[in-house]
């Protein structure tokens, strides 16, 4: 019997082939019953009903796009690589900006019951706000669509990091704090040598949730602000009625999101400890 991994891969491939086959079979243009007119030939067949392009067409298009991902032929025609790079840059800028504030603030909230009680109402009200709801206000105040998109990423990725850091810090085992105390560690040493490593797995979980949300939100934000980025690309190709590109970019969004999550997952494993 092959190992579980091998069997799982086989089943995955089987499902993939089935789905693609079904998709391919259901989306073939009907065969012409009579000779096509010149006009019909020009319009791409005798099909008067719009269809989702079959996977073979999408794959062909993907191959074409991926073989030259970084071309730049003007504002409305850039390679997929460039668009993804713009989105990633915005996500990472907003995300690390959020981490810079959320983690220290989370420490403060986690270590001080006073600050926890004082700041909790603000967090509870601000957290459930859809990040896109901030967009008009951000555009008005910042007066720059690019930076407004980054702000939206910032505001949506701050909450999971803040809450998880505060929770992780507040729940560091009392014994470990006592070990720090009996070894005369200063507050700063205690924070870095005991509380940070103890809370690191919880903090990283928060960071992993945040990067996922940020990647979800960037697509919507870029559809709004336009210009560059994968979200804009999807919407632009929809306006061009190029469904091959739309499907291709949807898949690319998924792939990049998965890579981001895996990267954070790796780091999470590094700081994990067993009690």
């Amino acid at each position: 019997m092959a190992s579980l991994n091998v069997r799982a891969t086989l089943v995955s491939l089987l499902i993939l082939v089935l789905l693609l086959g079904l998709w391919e079979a259901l989306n073939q243009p009907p065969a012409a019953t009579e000779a096509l007119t010149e006009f019909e030939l020009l319009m791409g067949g005798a099909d008067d009903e719009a269809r989702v392009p079959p996977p073979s067409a999408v794959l062909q298009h993907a191959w074409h796009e991926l073989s030259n991902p970084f071309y730049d032929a003007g504002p409305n025609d850039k390679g997929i690589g460039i668009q993804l790079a713009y989105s990633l840059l915005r996500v990472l800028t907003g995300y690390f900006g959020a981490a810079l504030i959320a983690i220290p603030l989370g420490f403060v909230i986690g270590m001080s019951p006073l600050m926890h009680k004082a700041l909790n109402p603000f967090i509870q009200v601000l957290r459930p706000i859809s990040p896109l709801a901030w967009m008009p206000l951000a555009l008005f105040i910042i007066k720059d669509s690019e930076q407004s998109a980054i702000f939206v990423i910032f505001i949506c990725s701050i909450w999971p990091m803040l809450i998880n850091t505060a929770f992780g810090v507040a729940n560091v085992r009392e014994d470990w704090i006592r070990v720090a105390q009996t070894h005369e560690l200063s507050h700063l040493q205690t924070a870095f040598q005991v509380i940070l490593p103890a809370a690191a797995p919880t903090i990283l979980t928060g960071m992993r949730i945040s990067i996922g949300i940020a990647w979800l939100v960037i697509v919507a934000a870029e559809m709004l602000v336009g210009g560059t980025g994968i979200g804009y690309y999807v919407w632009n190709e929809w306006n061009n009625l190029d469904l091959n590109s739309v499907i291709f970019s949807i898949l690319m969004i998924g792939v990049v999101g998965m890579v981001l999550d895996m990267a954070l997952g790796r780091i999470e494993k590094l700081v994990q400890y067993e009690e």
Partner: protein
Amino acid sequence: MPNHFVSVEGLTKKYPSKNGELVVFEDANFTIEKGEFVCIIGHSGCGKSTILNVLAGLDSPTGGNIIMDGKEVIGPSLDRGVVFQNYSLLPWLSTLHNVSFGVKARWPQWSKQQVEAHSSKFLEMVGLAHSLHKKPSELSGGMRQRVSIARAFATSPKLLLLDEPFGALDALTRGVIQDELIKIWNETHQTVFMITHDVDEAILLADRILLMTNGPDARVAESVKISIERPRNRANIIEDPGYYKIRNHLVNFLIKRSGQLSGSDTGRGEPPKLVDPANSHLSAEQIRTQSEDSTSLAVKAAS
């Protein structure tokens, strides 16, 4: 008044509660000499752990004070090392780093090599030379407690506080680690204050055993001298002529007098009564009747 290494004077701990206040212990007085191994025994709830935490500086008393080496004890310090019952190792650090964590804090000016050499020396003493790079989660309970003991001894505190260090271990492991503790203590002659529930363990390890009455309102009633020759070991200590005299005295206290004396005013505010059962002319029976007499006298006087 002779100068003691540690002197605990009028130590009191009270908590506010629904009906007035809860007195955990009141007016505890005792002393510890340099290089002495002192155990404290008492029933649960008599405040042993609180006394130890106050000695460690992790808890503050309601009244009274502790003088160690001429200075008042305020707050935690590297001068007082603690071994907790649940080991309290940092799980993300290896065995070696758990010990060097303490050593680095103690001697920040040491080089990395010095710190590691010193740390491994103490881990070798407790028989863990082969597990330097294992994480605590890969060690058994007994091995974890040895790391914790090595960490405490490696920082050579002036006073070492052990809070029921073997409480969570099975009897066999407990015996092995008691031997390790004796070995490392013989080499360092560290001053130790240890909480235990185990009478035999206390006799094996201690120079003196402090006995506490039942709580609430507990106090340190007796200080029992263990005059059994060192080096001692588990196998032949029971053959010592004094062993059973001491053991009977302790068990008798725990079963009977700890309850009888609880809350009574006999000897309140005084240092604990010094007893040396192994060299006493009185049998355990006589000591018991004697203390019963004094208790009934006290009760009469009070009524």
